[in-house]
């Protein structure tokens, strides 16, 4: 096996014209990372056109070569030091900059934030700082550029650096260092410059090389958003594999796993993989799969945790920090789609608590909508409960995006799960557990006043989900040669599957009628499957 050099993705950002391209060009030139002859070629070009050479032209020349002059988008340039290879994800400052920067920074492990010494801290110096914080980039180095234009002045450096450090600390970023540089003159980029004897820190390269490769959080509680449950039957394969990438923690054969929000549990029977030695465990970072010792019904969107470890949160009312990039503002009364982990759920904007001006961190308290490039503190109501973590507990599983009209239009982190006062919602988990007891514990049969039939109650917040699950159960029983009776109860439409009710029958009347009628059905010896969204404890009692 060859020794693999490590690679690190870094993103460079900062206000427009603060010298990002010059810094990158200089880094490429001074680390000998340019194609042979490129530097001379660009210099010669400048001479021919009687314009002063700039290192930024190097980047343009590379891009022209790569892209035929088409505006490059989050493109990558490479340079290497003795210790590792770097990929600079460059997100140029056009109108789409923020979308590209988000994309670039999502793949980065460290960030360079460039500030012009003459101009000082500007709007995007702040906005980008805020975004890096929300995206979870903790390894940040600030470059105060164009020091040659301010006579390498220590006091200019001090004043910008204390102003910016104060800002960054408000958004939770503690920069590894703030380095005075000149991209044009190459000061403090690859080696420490003589032009600023008052500066006692390191060069940019030394600082980058000291950044750590991010370690996978193997010692945190186990979290795996279920991507899918596979049952590929080709070639007699009978494995039923729960697949996903481990966000944190570790698992091994025999561990008991609880899936949220369903609350179902089972033990890991095997750890699955293709073309590897037999595995018995798996840890954070692995795109893994495992089988369970029991056939429990789970689907994509559940969050797997280890029984006994700290649990994730389940809620349908969440307070978040959100960054909005959508063309249209985020408004109340409209349905949006939330994607968190692997779950997808319809949401509505409930309350805008604060609109945070990312530039001066001033807050607007009375906003009713969230505009493009706004940062907001707001609450969303979800159409059903989902499982996640709070950002203060574990950032990875607190991250979400919002889809508006097919487009990812915003991203954010969950700060708080609000106790949902809606009783139908809070009763939901309990009822799902009850369903399992009723369907799986045969002793309960006697409760139904029947010698022959079985009753299966299926519930959930989503009416369609409950119907789907009920239909699946029905199919299963039909295959076993039974003759199940499937009945669905709904809040808003009367029995879709039968016509024994008036269309204006209330849910209460439906439940009353059915509970009276139930023993007759059960006496036929059939299994009766009732699906109803949001069954309450009282309703379950009635059926018993």
């Amino acid at each position, binding site marked *: 096996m060859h020794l693999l050099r490590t690679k690190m993705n870094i993103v460079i950002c900062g206000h427009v014209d603060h010298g990002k391209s010059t810094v990158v060009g200089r880094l490429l030139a001074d680390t000998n990372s340019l194609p042979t002859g490129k530097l001379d070629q660009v210099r010669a070009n400048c001479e021919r056109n009687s314009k002063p050479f700039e290192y930024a032209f190097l980047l343009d020349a590379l891009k022209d070569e790569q*892209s035929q002059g*088409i505006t490059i988008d989050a493109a*990558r340039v490479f340079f290497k030091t003795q210790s590792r290879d770097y990929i600079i994800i460059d997100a140029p400052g056009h109108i789409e900059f923020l979308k590209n920067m988000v994309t670039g920074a999502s*793949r980065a492990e460290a960030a360079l934030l460039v500030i012009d010494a003459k101009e000082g801290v500007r709007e995007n110096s702040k906005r980008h700082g805020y975004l890096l914080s929300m995206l979870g980039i903790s390894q940040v180095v600030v470059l105060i550029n164009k020091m040659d234009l301010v006579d390498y002045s220590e006091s200019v450096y001090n004043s910008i650096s204390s102003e910016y450090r104060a800002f960054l600390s408000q958004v939770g970023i503690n920069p590894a260092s703030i380095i005075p540089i000149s991209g044009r003159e190459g000061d403090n980029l690859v080696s420490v410059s003589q032009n600023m004897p008052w500066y006692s820190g390191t060069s940019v390269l030394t600082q980058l090389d000291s950044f750590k490769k991010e370690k996978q959080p193997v010692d945190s509680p186990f979290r795996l958003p279920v991507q*899918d449950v596979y049952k590929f039957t080709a070639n007699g*394969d009978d494995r039923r594999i729960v697949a996903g*990438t481990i966000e944190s923690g570790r698992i091994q054969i025999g561990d008991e796993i609880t899936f949220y929000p369903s609350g179902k549990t089972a033990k890991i029977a095997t750890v699955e*993989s293709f*073309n590897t030695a037999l595995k018995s465990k798996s840890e954070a970072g692995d795109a893994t799969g495992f089988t369970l010792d029991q056939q429990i019904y789970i689907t994509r969107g559940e969050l797997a945790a280890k029984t006994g470890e700290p649990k994730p949160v389940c809620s349908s009312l969440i307070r978040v920090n959100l960054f909005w990039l959508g063309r249209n503002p985020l408004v109340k009364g409209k349905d949006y789609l939330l994607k968190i982990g692997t779950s997808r759920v319809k949401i509505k904007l409930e309350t805008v608590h604060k609109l945070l001006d990312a530039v001066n961190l001033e807050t607007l308290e009375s906003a009713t909508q969230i505009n493009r490039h706004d940062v907001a503190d707001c609450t969303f109501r979800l159409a059903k409960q989902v499982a996640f973590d709070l950002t203060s507990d574990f950032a990875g599983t607190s991250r979400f995006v919002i889809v508006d009209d097919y487009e990812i239009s915003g991203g954010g982190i969950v700060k708080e799960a609000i106790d949902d006062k809606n009783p139908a919602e809070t009763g939901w988990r309990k009822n799902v557990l009850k369903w399992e007891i009723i369907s799986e514990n045969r002793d309960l049969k006697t409760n139904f006043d029947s010698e022959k039939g079985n009753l299966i109650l299926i519930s959930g917040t989503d009416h369609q989900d409950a119907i789907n699950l009920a239909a699946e159960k029905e199919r299963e029983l039909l295959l076993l040669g039974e003759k199940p009776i499937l009945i669905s109860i709904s809040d808003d439409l009367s029995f879709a599957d039968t016509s024994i009710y008036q269309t204006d029958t209330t849910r209460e009347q439906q439940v009353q009628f059915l509970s009276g009628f139930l023993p007759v059905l059960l006496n036929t010896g059939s299994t009766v499957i009732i699906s109803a969204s949001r069954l309450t404890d009282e309703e379950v009692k009635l059926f018993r």
Partner: protein
Amino acid sequence: MNQLDQLEARSVYIFREAYANFKNLCMLWSIGKDSTVLLWLARKAFFGHVPFPLVHIDTHYKIPAMIEYRNKLALEFNLNLIYGENTEALANKLTFPDGNVDRLTCCKNLKADALKNTLSGEWPRFKLNHSTGEFDLDTNREAYTGVIVGARADEEGSRSKERYFSPRNKESSWDVGDQPPEFWNQYKTDFAPGTHVRIHPLLDWTELNIWEYIEREKIPTVDLYYNQGEGKRFRSLGCWPCTHSVDSDSKNVAEIIEELKTGKFANIAERSGRAQDKEDGGGLETLRREGYM
């Protein structure tokens, strides 16, 4: 986890997201090293299975060894293999080797147009019949809405601008300047009717990574990549009239890895042996905007 493990894990994650979110999913298979690594990663993601069709655009000018290798692997791995072609252009000899069009137009006819119309289902598709080993007309004419492609960012300039999930509009074209953001590991999996999404699990892989992975996993590759004793090998594979070999003594995977590490090709584009790139001014932007992979 080493770098290859990390690359593999990300690719597998992308595969599974694609499979969970797209009902009509397919994977393009050009038979080259990248798309064969892609195929291998699919088997990693789905535990030995490949639960979607592999689509190959047959220009009928591929080096014959490639087609042989394609059919052999499809039968061996039990793959759902489908091919499409531009029957009309081939019949009317509107190709570069026939001397009737330039290289770029030939690429557009035999690749970009064939791809567009095969994906949309407008032109016939041919499906490998595993019991006869022959290709039958595919009765499924539904458009593919998710298309997995083996493009790598380091391969050439325009590919470095791709997202992991890049949307294509109704005309299959690509709006490079206005692409959706990708926050963390959340990708564009919602799309308007008539549009489709190109999915790029190999975006972060380099040419060296590809060979290191082929070595680690012992992935079967077509012999054309190796020096057969004449001091030449192919670095990138395509149609024979437009694909040239490079000078190289590398006879096996390990020697290719060593060769790449010496930096011998550092200043020579991987696709420099692909003549059509030069006619596109050194990049594939024009072709790719029109749907070329």
